[in-house]
């Protein structure tokens, strides 16, 4: 008996997702490549605070009420985030202090970087133990990275600035695996398109003259992107690359993660175990959530009043959220 099949093309949600992602990246690359300084100011103003709220909301939705077998892991995570944040803020705000010479500041910065790397490696190792897998490869990798942090500290710090945006993309990949597996292949193609856009940006901007540093803000933006470390690369290219990657980072947290994980939608508090579980801490959770929203509003007012100072303060304290991302990401592996 013969069977007749109709082969047709159906537009699926994965197709729409990938087209929208690539289109958004193309528009972002074009705009950011043309106006890097202006877009840097605008994106930080609009999205920095809200994306932190979304991150906090997402992490709390992933935090179990009872830690159980993950107790050691979460304790190690908190034992890393709090002191490393405090130490970073100490280094940051005391960098002009007469107590510390430039050499001692560089040494303490290298010590901080090493502590951070060892902490992340410890989390990898603990997660491997939990999953009963041999992740001891993390130990030699950690020591290799620590040696780089000492021998090329400026490049190491700059590498962190550029690697951080990819953390969000990794989060999204793990989340799509869990809640929208039909989008996984499309998302991998979307990720593959990012180097393509970076190469286009670099090819079109490598010959551009350096961006203006006439104001303290512009100097800060250039310096954040590494213009003083990579002096032979156009700062226009560096700032555009950094702002492009950060924009994808904000896009992922604000839009894509809530899209693939309904539990990450901010107002669906019943999906947060810490809020809805009978053993949860609903009042404390709501207080923290309200405080984070209020801080975002204060941040907007701060940006409007004195953008440069607010930006400096924000990026100093933002290290806390960067550190907090690592335990939750490693927990998802």
């Amino acid at each position: 008996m013969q069977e007749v099949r109709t082969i047709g093309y159906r537009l699926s949600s994965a197709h729409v997702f990938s087209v929208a992602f690539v289109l958004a990246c193309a528009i972002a690359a074009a705009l950011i490549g043309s106006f890097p300084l202006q877009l840097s100011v605008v994106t930080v103003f609009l999205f920095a605070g809200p994306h932190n709220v979304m991150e906090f909301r997402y992490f709390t939705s992933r935090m179990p009420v009872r830690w159980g077998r993950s107790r050691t892991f979460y304790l190690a995570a908190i034992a890393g985030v709090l002191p490393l944040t405090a130490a970073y803020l100490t280094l940051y705000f005391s960098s002009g202090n007469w107590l510390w010479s430039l050499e001692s500041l560089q040494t303490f910065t290298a010590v901080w970087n090493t502590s951070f790397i060892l902490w992340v490696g410890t989390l990898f190792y603990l997660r491997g133990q939990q999953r009963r897998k041999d992740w001891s490869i993390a130990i030699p990798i950690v020591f290799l990275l620590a040696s780089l942090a000492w021998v090329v500290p400026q490049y190491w710090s700059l590498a962190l600035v550029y690697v951080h945006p990819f953390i969000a993309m990794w989060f999204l990949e793990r989340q799509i695996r869990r809640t929208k597996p039909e989008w996984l292949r499309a998302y991998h193609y979307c990720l593959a398109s990012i180097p393509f856009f970076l190469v286009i940006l670099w090819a079109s901007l490598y010959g551009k003259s350096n961006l203006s540093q006439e104001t303290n803000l512009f100097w800060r933006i250039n310096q954040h992107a590494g213009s003083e470390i990579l002096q032979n690369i156009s700062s226009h290219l560096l700032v555009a690359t950094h702002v492009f990657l950060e924009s994808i980072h904000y896009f992922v947290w604000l839009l894509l993660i809530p899209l693939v994980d309904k539990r990450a939608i901010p107002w669906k508090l019943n999906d947060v175990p810490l809020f809805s579980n009978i053993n949860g801490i609903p009042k404390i959770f709501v207080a923290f959530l309200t405080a984070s929203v209020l801080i975002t509003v204060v941040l907007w007012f701060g940006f409007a009043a004195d953008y440069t100072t607010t930006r400096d303060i924000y990026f100093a304290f933002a290290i806390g959220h960067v550190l907090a991302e690592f335990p939750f990401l490693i927990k998802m592996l």
Partner: protein
Amino acid sequence: MKKLTTLIGMTLFTSTYCFADIARPNNLSAQTPKPRAAIETTMDIRLRPDEKEARLIIPKSQIKQLRAQLETLDEGSNNAAVFTSGNGINGLQTIMSGLFLSLAIVLGGVWFMRSAKSPRANKGVIAAILLSFVASATFVFANAGPPAEARSITGKMFSQAMHIYGFGWGKIKVETTDDDDRITLIVPNPKTSPSPGEE
């Protein structure tokens, strides 16, 4: 244990405020802008085909003038420039990076031997190592400086093609002389032989 952890965390957190709030010493001289030592003079630039190295010849009389100006100023510390030039590493950096690198190689080798049964894992590690080399090479070559003509002081540095870089550097010998009253920059300008296609 919880109390100890909380106490340590509070101590570290409050130390931020303690260290950040220490006032600078009351150094009035640090608040006033320092004038620079400067004298106005003329410099001759001479391109000579028979010279082997670039030389800057400064008359002793002008060095004496400059020294007199410097003695009236505070010792300007350029230590910050020395530390931030970033090209050298100090002893502590060498020791720590060497220690961690040694640990990484030793422990990586141990892991490699233990996981010899898993060729898939080994392929992943080899791929990761190759990727890190490629990434490092990208950084190194992307940050590569201008061509050789802009990295040595010769007559070629004055050519139009070098202007796009806007800067250059090279070794120079600084000499003093009693014979002249003008600063002279001697720049080697070797003649380039025409390529076979040119006549």
